[in-house]
């Protein structure tokens, strides 16, 4: 079919998100039952999210909803005008009891995951704090980091360097990078390309320890891969939905979000995807995560504001 698909189909909803286990979870826990309950056809586009920014910048249609994006990323898009601040969405967000820190027009952020310490081996000895993570005598072996963004990793370095969680923001980027230098100078460091690669590196044992994504680790553990991780001093990050500029079907999008944020549906999805619900009083999120009071929240506003500038410093550090 070498012709553009007609956009006249009013009851079609295009959702852009990630593939893999995340996509599977979303499909089975949310999309499929939603389609059964409504007359909306959902097309789930798994190519998130490289296309979204440039496409919107160019004035094109990138989809109706985006899903699985960090709150920081959503904020920065919102500030560029890529999100549609629909009033119904703002209302929905409030009604569902989304914590204040994750509320912004055009977004619905009802889940969280965390940057955590992971290790190779089912019963591996785990560091209990980021400063332990930097203890190369007790925890020898390669470390794996993620290359694409410094988010979470700078926070981890500062916490390891003794910065109090409350004093974390604004980040002392130079100090964080110096601490990371220590890491890189002491043990071999691998840089993963994606969260999925991080899991592979840890599971295969190419890296002994990693700063990794809790949701991916939950899934890996669930699958029986030889990984261990702890939520201790985990860096929590909001993750959720955004309504995209140029959405062709805002009504269906709202309908979908109403369904997806229904407590039972959200819980089902979060469990499948290895995420925690962002509601503080939630009971169904993984017990370890909830119990760990040492977790720190990554500041969405800081990253929305400083993403590019800190990113440049990160690149400089990477290659120096």
């Amino acid at each position, binding site marked *: 079919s070498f012709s553009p698909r007609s956009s006249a189909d009013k009851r079609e909803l295009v959702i852009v998100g990630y593939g*893999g286990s*995340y996509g599977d979870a979303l499909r089975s826990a949310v999309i499929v039952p939603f389609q059964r309950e409504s007359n909306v056809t959902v097309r789930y586009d798994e190519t998130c999210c*490289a296309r979204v920014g440039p496409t919107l*910048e*160019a004035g094109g249609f990138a989809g109706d909803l985006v899903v699985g994006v960090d709150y920081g990323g959503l904020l920065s898009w919102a500030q560029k005008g890529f999100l549609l601040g629909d009033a119904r969405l703002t209302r929905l967000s409030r009604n569902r009891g989304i914590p204040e820190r994750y509320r912004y027009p055009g977004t619905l952020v009802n889940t969280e995951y965390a940057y955590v310490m992971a290790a190779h081996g089912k019963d591996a000895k785990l560091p209990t704090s980021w400063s332990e993570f930097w203890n190369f005598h007790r925890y020898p072996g390669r470390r794996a980091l993620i*290359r694409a963004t410094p988010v979470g990793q700078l926070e981890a370095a500062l916490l390891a360097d003794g910065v109090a969680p409350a004093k974390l923001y604004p980040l002392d980027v130079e100090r964080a990078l110096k601490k990371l230098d220590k890491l890189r100078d002491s043990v071999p460091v691998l840089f993963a390309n994606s969260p999925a*690669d991080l899991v592979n590196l840890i599971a*295969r044992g190419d890296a002994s320890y990693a700063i990794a994504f809790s949701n991916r680790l939950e899934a890996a553990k669930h699958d029986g891969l030889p990984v261990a991780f702890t939520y201790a001093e985990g860096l929590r990050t909001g993750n959720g939905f955004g309504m995209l500029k140029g959405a062709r079907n805002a009504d269906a999008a709202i309908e979908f979000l109403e369904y997806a944020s229904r407590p039972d549906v959200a819980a089902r999805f979060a469990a499948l995807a290895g995420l925690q619900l962002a509601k503080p009083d939630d009971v169904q999120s993984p017990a370890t995560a909830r119990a760990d009071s040492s977790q720190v929240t990554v500041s969405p506003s800081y990253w929305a504001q400083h*993403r590019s500038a800190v990113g440049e410093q990160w690149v400089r550090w990477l290659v120096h």
Partner: protein
Amino acid sequence: MGTLAGSLSAPTIERHRGYAVFAAGLCVFVALPLATVVSLSIGSPWYSIYARLFERPEIIRIILRTLLVAVITAAITVGLALPVALTIGFSSTRRRLALLWLFAIAGFSPFLVRGYAFVGLLGEHGPVDALRRLLQISGGPLLGTAAGVVVTLVHALIPATVIIITAAISDDTKRQISVAAAFGAGPADRFLLVTLPTLIPSLVSAFAFAFIIAAGAFTAPSLVGGGRETLAVQVIYMHAIDLDDLKSAAALSILLALCILLCVAAIIAAFGSKRSRPGSLRRLRSVAAPLRRVSPRVLGAGGTFLRVALTSFAIILVAVPLVYVVAVSFQPQDMLAFPTDGLSVRWYRQVLADSSWLHAAAVTARIGIVAALLATSAGYLVAQATRQLRPSSARVVRAATIAPAAAPAVMFGVGLYVIASRIGLAGTEFGVALAHALAALPIAYLAVSAGVERYDDSFDRAAAVLGASPAARLIAIRLPILMPSFVAALVLSLLVSFDEVIMTLFMAGTDVQTIALRMWSSAIHSAGPELAVPSAFLLVVTGLGMLILFAQFGSPTDLTKRNTNG
């Protein structure tokens, strides 16, 4: 030899204004998306974004390092591809077909998956590091080093370069080699004074191709590279996607593209002139001089040994990741690793149950075929045009043709998307095919031009005086004689289309799903053995397909060799 009819340069044959018009059109076609990228890189004042880039010392370093990695990669690639091509070109039909088959199907396993195979192969627990420890070579695993990136890139580039060079080994080459032997030229002299100079155009093409692709590499350094080895396109990608800084990404893209084009221009200027100059012959002669003291028998045996050794190494380099991929597809657990605890067909069941893979395969095939045909025809027309344009215009056209590969796909994709969405092509299969054709144009052009450059026009002249119209000449004479180059171009463009992700990402919109795209998107979130399953399938399917194709068209060089009569 047929050069006599060709000795009298014939302005009226195949010198057609149509070629120039086409070339001009193509330049515009390529220029439009590039112009969009340029416009994205404009700040206020217009140069501010660029000025900002130059204030960052790491940017220059990244670009230089990228070019260095590309040069090293291209040199190693061509150094390996040449002996392989010679082995293929001078061996029996059967062996030739088998080798070509191996190199061609290697390309039909998506590079993303092979890249993951390298992560496993080069890592701490991979066979390469095991070998290193066995041989007690100091150092660590290649994973996360520039060397690992180079190895991965060489692996990726060998099939295409081998195909380009093999297509250039013609009966004429063989005849000249036997003439040289008759005049007392030993193996070294034959190689240095005859084989090498006659293969120069194809070697330049292959080198330029390898250089461009390596300089624009994204997947290999992302998967295998470390932090310091972060290359230019990765940085561009980070700016465009992760750091939301499209303007810097655009400016950096333009900068990188210019550097690549300059380097390619320099390569072509240095080696690409049609007739080797006396100076270079003299240099080759002085290389040959000390070798002449060695007995020809020893030299011949040594040369053969070297050739066989390098060819074997290339075969291993190409084949091992494929074996690894097939093995991984039977990994019972959800991780990309060599199966050590039993085998499982779990992922096959999963893939076969998912009709979207099959759908994606059909879309991929359709797009691939259209793109390959478009790219090859355009590549041929450009090769014709550059042959007859004034050198200065030819340089412009060549640059425009290569630009789609030199410009990082992220930004070229954005530029293309902007144009395509204006004319309603975004989000259509044809739009994607068009984008793929552009992406494949450089390699198609390089593959075809290696043939066109040494094509003996006298066949066209003979056909013309016998009454054949230009169209009849194209179909009855040029196409069949240049078939090896055309097949090479088609296969290589098909491979490009098959592996293209980033531009597809933009052009496909939310409606078109190719296999590469499907793999890429699931790999971001969970890079599991599921990815290896379609690859294993494709290995078989494309393997059979290529066998049929080569059997149909014959191999790049025909067998029956008649040495020196007429």
